[in-house]
């Protein structure tokens, strides 16, 4: 040891004093040079990194927070200010990781987003299982700044990163009889919430809704890899519908002829319908949907028809009684 620290008491005034003394018996040659010290540190750091990299499966290198590289801008993005990253990643409804909104961010260890595969099956000519690496290269990644309106009456603006679901559907070639797409989320009974809803979580869209250019498969937000609590590694985003339609951590897409019965429809058929389009005129049976609180804002704002996407999507519902098909 090159230095020693001694604690002594000064006998004259009674106060304790710290003396730092270099004992004379250490030769300067015995002291580690700063260069060598730094080299050792570097070696340790490098070997730890190598050992970690070797121990982990390849996909796990894509961790939340990692940049997704240059992204194409999209004309579908809105001009509103995105909700702060912290709010987007700490205020989540992801019941599999806990029913309190702060839970998912605290329980990210319960879901391993790599390795990951997404199976596309059902009424398609080319059923296929995609690895997450394949999905990331399937179409150019775009940034889509969308409104997100929760059925509970709050909203955010989220800069998603992803690609249109339509690009994926094209690859599997839906058959003429396919009318709906069912989305199934990952569920692991040993680590995730039991009860509350029927697991695994599932959602559904009509095929034309699924093919709509606004419908997104998101793999990131804020230019970075999607955090677990937001539905890593890949989730659905349907901006004109209530947030729960955006099934997280997708493992299966199934094209069907019959309308899927979704997790929320099973949980409360009188409260949650298949369509779940954002509609200020159709209230939730227990609360109003006329207004919403944008996270970070003090006053409430008026909820917009189809969450402000009426121009793009309203034509899909012409002639439909939206009170009946809620």
């Amino acid at each position, binding site marked *: 040891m090159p230095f020693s620290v001694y604690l002594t008491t000064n006998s004259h005034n009674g106060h304790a004093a710290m003396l730092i003394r270099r004992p004379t018996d250490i030769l300067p040659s015995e002291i580690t040079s700063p260069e060598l010290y730094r080299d050792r540190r570097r070696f340790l750091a490098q070997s730890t990194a190598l050992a970690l990299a070797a121990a982990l499966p390849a996909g796990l290198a894509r961790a939340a927070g990692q940049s997704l590289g240059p992204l194409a801008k999209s004309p579908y993005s809105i001009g509103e200010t995105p909700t702060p990253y*912290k709010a987007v990643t*700490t*205020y989540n409804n992801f019941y599999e990781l806990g029913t309190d909104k702060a839970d998912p961010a605290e329980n990210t260890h319960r879901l391993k987003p790599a390795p990951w595969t997404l199976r596309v099956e059902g009424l398609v000519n080319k059923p296929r299982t995609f690895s997450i690496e394949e999905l990331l290269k399937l179409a150019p990644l775009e940034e889509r700044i969308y409104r997100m309106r929760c059925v509970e009456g709050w909203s955010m603006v989220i800069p998603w990163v992803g690609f249109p679901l339509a690009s994926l559907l094209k690859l599997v070639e839906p058959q003429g009889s396919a009318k709906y797409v069912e989305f199934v989320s990952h569920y692991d009974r040993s680590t995730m919430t039991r009860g509350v809803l029927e697991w695994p979580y599932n959602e559904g869209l009509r095929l034309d809704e699924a093919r709509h250019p606004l419908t997104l498969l998101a793999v990131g937000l804020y230019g970075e890899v999607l955090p677990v609590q937001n539905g890593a590694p890949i989730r659905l985003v349907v901006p004109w519908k209530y947030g729960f339609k955006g099934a997280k951590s997708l493992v299966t897409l199934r094209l069907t002829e019959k309308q899927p019965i979704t997790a929320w429809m099973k949980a409360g058929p009188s409260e949650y319908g298949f369509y779940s389009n954002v509609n200020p005129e159709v209230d939730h049976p*227990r609360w*109003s949907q*006329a207004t919403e*609180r944008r996270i970070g804002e*003090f006053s409430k704002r008026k909820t917009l028809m189809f969450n402000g996407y009426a121009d793009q999507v309203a034509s899909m519902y012409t002639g439909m009684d939206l009170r009946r098909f809620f």
Partner: protein
Amino acid sequence: MTPTTPQLGAIKTALFALCLVPAFLLWRGLEMDTLGANPIEALTRATGEWTLRFLLITLTVTPLRKYSGWHWLVRLRRMLGLFAFAYGVTHLLTYVWLDQFFDWHAIVKDILKRPFITVGFAALVLMTPLAATSFNAAIRKLGGRRWQALHRAIYPIAVMGCVHFWWLVKKDITEPLIYALITAALLGLRAWWREQERRKQLAGGYLPQPRFESKVIKIFE
């Protein structure tokens, strides 16, 4: 064990400070922005839950007194009940002010149209005469028996509080269920006491005890 008057004063002061702790923590959370992404919802939720907790704590005083023999505990009951009311008023204020921002049209519509808000609002309205008759003069004026009959409104109030909570949650009813079970236990206990008393009466060995009238005066002297 019965504390002396100065001891009881000290206990009351300590309890008062303790009852203020949740309010203080919420205030600090609001100032330091640690209530999460939706502080208004967090505040509304917390004040509502504290109202229910204080109601249940108030309802625990009598069983506790009965089984421990510490009859002086009842002297803390008024303060606990008033705190329940104070947190309830704060809860209503967060809704009227922070949540709806004095949009009276929307508020009235909500109260009439949303059963969970109707029940919650009715519970708070019912609490008001209880808080208003909590002082000694009111007790004397009403007379112990009538005063007690009025204050038994806390039973339906607690039930309504639980229903209010139950109806507002989206799906996970764990928390409202816990409150409902505690409420059921506290009210069930009283029903059981009543039944015991009735049986005693039927058995003929019952002598009416002047327990309530005399106690009420003594408690709030």
